[in-house]
């Protein structure tokens, strides 16, 4: 009896403590002004009212996929191909048409461009960003130069990291698996007055194709702080660094089995948004990024070795004003100054920084005279000192929403991609004891921008009752003035002879490619915990017979499928990725994926958080040819890893 009484008293204690600490409600709780959290500009445009096709990769999808590298997640986007020239050198391209340095997609992390101004591509492995940091990825399919300028000819990948307020407490994860795979991730977040912060650390080692030339290790650190000093102001500061030791080549020139790269990257990003009320706000963004590659490229004697070293910096300041006060009209105006600098002695002929001052001015107007119609007009004006040219990238789009379920979109756009500093200034020599032996490449032409004209028709179906979303797009692209290599023979009447008296390569604006495509993505959420995402793309590509490498670089059919559902307390997800034959430029092998991945996970709640254990098996169907360079055939065969994650608050 006594025991029972004591027990009931103990049960009452928390309730009493709770009642004592509970402040009473008052009318102030109903009427006091609240912070504006989701001002219109912070919200993404609803997909069915956007001027372009947008695919969103959610955190749920990233986790269910079992991918450990950020770039692999793009396999979930219609029309994307991901290849790995080596364990350190992944490349992702939309609609094919690429070598190991894709440069027709702009990639931004929280509004900061991460492309490499030397080659114009993205060094995915060197971005100081873990998958745990990522909140969602929005991929604009189709030209987005009117909005994002530089390199956005085929689209833009916007990666958004999680707000630090949502990652309070700690997290530690250890993952081990086949192919020397080891990874440790740690994160801790805390609160300060009117703000929050997070710091993350990643250490990783793997050997993607199970050969020594693929061995790679990374150490990454990043920080994000969010601060809201007033109800109208919202500030975000990020910085981070990444250090990689990668066997193989990071500049696409593998000459020796012991060749390796030390890669260093760092960045800082400051964004200040100020709400002016009534749907108006301005934002100021300051950013700086640097990349450094240290790589010796040995050559057979008596040739002198060449250096794959490079250093790049990109600094920018951007001011944006948004006005969404009127229900019919929404406008934006943005101005940016950016300075890109590249030091690439072996390929640019001298040990000096090449600079490109970039001025950009862009604006967009959205007019919605009724709920059924939305007109969009956007224009980017961009001037580069490297080419002393001014480029215009306009876009017009019309959305028709005859009902809440159906939406149609018609869009026409013109985009440009400024040639990278490398293509415009290349000067590659082979020397023997410092004396010129062979002039391999030399830029002698003033290159013009690469351009695209695109027409697209989109259809979106949304049926919340069925948990169903469908996004269809048909398009026609004409890509022209493509920068390509051109061989100059001895005594070519159009060119002077090279200093060594032999033939040589230069860059010219020449080829043209026409592409037609149909793609769709279905998202179905039939049960609260079960969902699937299915994407397919069919492409047809034409170019002149002498540039036949363009059509064969395009997969005629791609498919990706990811589904998740819990079974007996275990979260089961299955991913299937199919890529028809494609040959990356300069590749010696076709890539063809037919890959099936399985992820099983289970979590347990603890007093202060949860523990999750996961098993991932990739490439269940066997080997996948995912390499494209001529070093050796690199196969991605079946493999698995186990991970254990503990999150607490």
């Amino acid at each position, binding site marked *: 009896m006594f025991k029972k009484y004591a027990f009931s008293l103990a049960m009452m204690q928390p309730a009493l403590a709770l009642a004592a600490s509970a402040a009473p409600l008052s*009318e102030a709780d109903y009427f006091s002004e609240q912070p504006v*959290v989701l001002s219109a500009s912070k919200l993404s445009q609803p997909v069915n009212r956007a001027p372009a096709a947008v695919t969103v990769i959610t955190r749920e999808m990233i986790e269910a996929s079992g991918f450990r590298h950020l770039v692999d997640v793009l396999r979930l986007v219609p029309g994307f191909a991901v290849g790995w020239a080596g364990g350190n050198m992944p490349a992702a391209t939309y609609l094919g048409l690429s070598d190991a340095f894709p440069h027709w997609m702009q990639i931004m992390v929280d509004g900061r461009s991460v492309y490499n101004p030397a080659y114009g591509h993205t060094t995915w492995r060197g971005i100081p960003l873990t998958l745990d940091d990522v909140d969602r990825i929005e991929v604009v399919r189709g030209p987005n130069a009117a909005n994002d300028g530089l390199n956005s000819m085929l689209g833009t990948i916007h990666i958004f990291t999680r707000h630090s307020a949502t990652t309070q407490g700690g997290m530690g994860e250890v993952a081990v698996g086949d192919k020397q795979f080891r990874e440790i991730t740690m994160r801790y977040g805390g609160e300060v007055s009117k703000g929050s912060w997070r710091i993350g650390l990643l250490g990783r080692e793997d050997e993607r194709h199970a050969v020594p030339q693929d061995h790679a290790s990374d150490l990454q650190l990043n920080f994000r702080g969010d601060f809201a000093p007033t109800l109208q102001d919202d500030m975000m500061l990020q910085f981070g660094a990444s250090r990689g030791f990668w066997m193989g080549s990071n500049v696409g020139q593998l000459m020796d089995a012991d060749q390796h790269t030390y890669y260093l990257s760092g960045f800082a990003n400051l964004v200040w948004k100020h709400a002016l009320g009534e749907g108006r706000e301005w934002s100021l963004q300051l950013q700086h990024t640097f990349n450094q590659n240290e790589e010796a490229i040995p050559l057979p004697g008596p040739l002198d070795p060449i250096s794959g070293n490079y250093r790049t910096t990109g600094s920018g300041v951007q001011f944006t004003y948004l006005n969404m006060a009127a229900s019919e009209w929404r406008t934006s105006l943005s101005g940016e100054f950016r300075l890109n600098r590249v030091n690439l002695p072996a390929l640019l002929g001298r040990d000096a920084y090449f600079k490109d001052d970039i001025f950009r001015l862009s604006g967009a107007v959205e007019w919605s005279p009724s709920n059924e119609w939305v007109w969009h007009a956007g224009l980017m004006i961009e001037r580069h000192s490297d080419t002393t040219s001014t480029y215009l990238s306009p876009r017009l789009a019309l959305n028709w929403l005859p009902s809440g379920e159906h939406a149609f979109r018609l869009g026409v756009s013109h985009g440009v991609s400024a040639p990278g500093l490398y293509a415009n200034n290349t000067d590659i020599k082979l020397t023997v004891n410092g004396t010129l032996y062979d002039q391999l490449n030399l830029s002698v032409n003033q290159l013009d921008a690469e351009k695209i004209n695109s027409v697209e028709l989109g259809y979106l179906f949304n049926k919340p009752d069925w948990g169903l979303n469908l996004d269809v797009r048909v398009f026609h692209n004409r890509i022209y003035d493509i920068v390509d290599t051109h061989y100059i023979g001895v005594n070519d009447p159009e060119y002077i002879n090279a200093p060594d008296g032999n033939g040589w390569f230069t860059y010219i604006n020449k080829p043209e490619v026409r592409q037609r495509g149909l793609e769709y993505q279905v998202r179905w959420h039939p049960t609260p915990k079960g969902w699937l995402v299915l994407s397919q793309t069919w492409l047809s590509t034409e170019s002149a017979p002498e540039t036949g490498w363009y059509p064969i670089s395009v997969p005629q059919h791609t498919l990706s499928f990811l589904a998740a559902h819990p079974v007996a307390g275990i979260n089961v997800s299955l991913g299937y990725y199919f890529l028809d034959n494609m040959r990356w430029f300069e590749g010696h092998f076709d890539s063809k994926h037919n890959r099936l991945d399985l992820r099983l996970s289970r979590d347990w709640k603890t007093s202060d958080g949860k523990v999750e254990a996961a098993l991932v098996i990739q490439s269940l169907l066997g080997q996948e040819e995912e390499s494209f360079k001529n070093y050796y055939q690199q196969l991605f065969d079946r493999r698995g890893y186990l991970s254990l994650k503990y999150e607490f608050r």
Partner: protein
Amino acid sequence: MIWLLRHHLARLSFVLLACSLLCAGLARAAPVINVLVAEPTGIYQETANSLTQALGREGWKVTVTSPGRNPASGGDLTVAIGTKALEAALAQPGRPVLSLLVPQLTYERLASGQQQVSALYLDQPLTRQLRLLGLALPGMKKAGVPLGPASQGLQAALQNAAKDSGIQVNSAPINKGSDMYAVLIDLAEDSQAFLLLPDPVATQRSTLQNFFLQTYRLKKPVLAYSAPLVQSGALLALYATPAQLGEEAAAWIRESWSKGVFRMGEARYPKRFTIGVNHTVARSLDIALPSEAALTRQLEAMP
């Protein structure tokens, strides 16, 4: 003839006397309402204005005072607008009190055991809130409700409302602001939308920012309880404006005056309401909402 004139004059004087007596009697019978506002500004004044205008049109005598300035004195009924006003009115027992602009839980705590006290709550009934979710979101079956220390007393009422409305409720306690994130993640697993109830812990400023960020990321719409919260990021809000509460209280006071006394009856929720919609949030979450007018009509038609 003179007799006839005298007779008529006598009748006329009797009628005039009777009228004057009756009018005087009526004047004495009209109640005196003492309105006590927590503060003579803002929502309190708005509610008081609405109430005095409605009663003043019928010649009722209404005086407005605030606790700090003039002590409430006399009157047949004290209308206390706001928590501080209610506390002051209850400190002087002896005459009927009607509470306005005070949440149900707070009213019950303050007025417990008191006689001659009633209230028109500030809150909207939970059943109506859940029904609105059902009307606005087709296929809506379960709502997640984070409950802070102050709102945990609504647990039983929530379950009753769930039965009445046919919308199930998943609730989870939040004992400090930093619990919010984990609670939302848990609730989101089995809820299609969130119902946000007022609570100083659950809805404190820093928490609220996290709350809306997180619900947006989880793609779960929120039904909240005030107009400012719709501006902040809730999809919908169900609430009564101060003007609506003032008018409804005036009607109730008129109905309750009978035979020289007030019989206010049981405290109750307001019949009137306003639905607030954030169309930007609706578009962002790909939710096709019926118009506010249509939702209001449908909700009014429900018992």
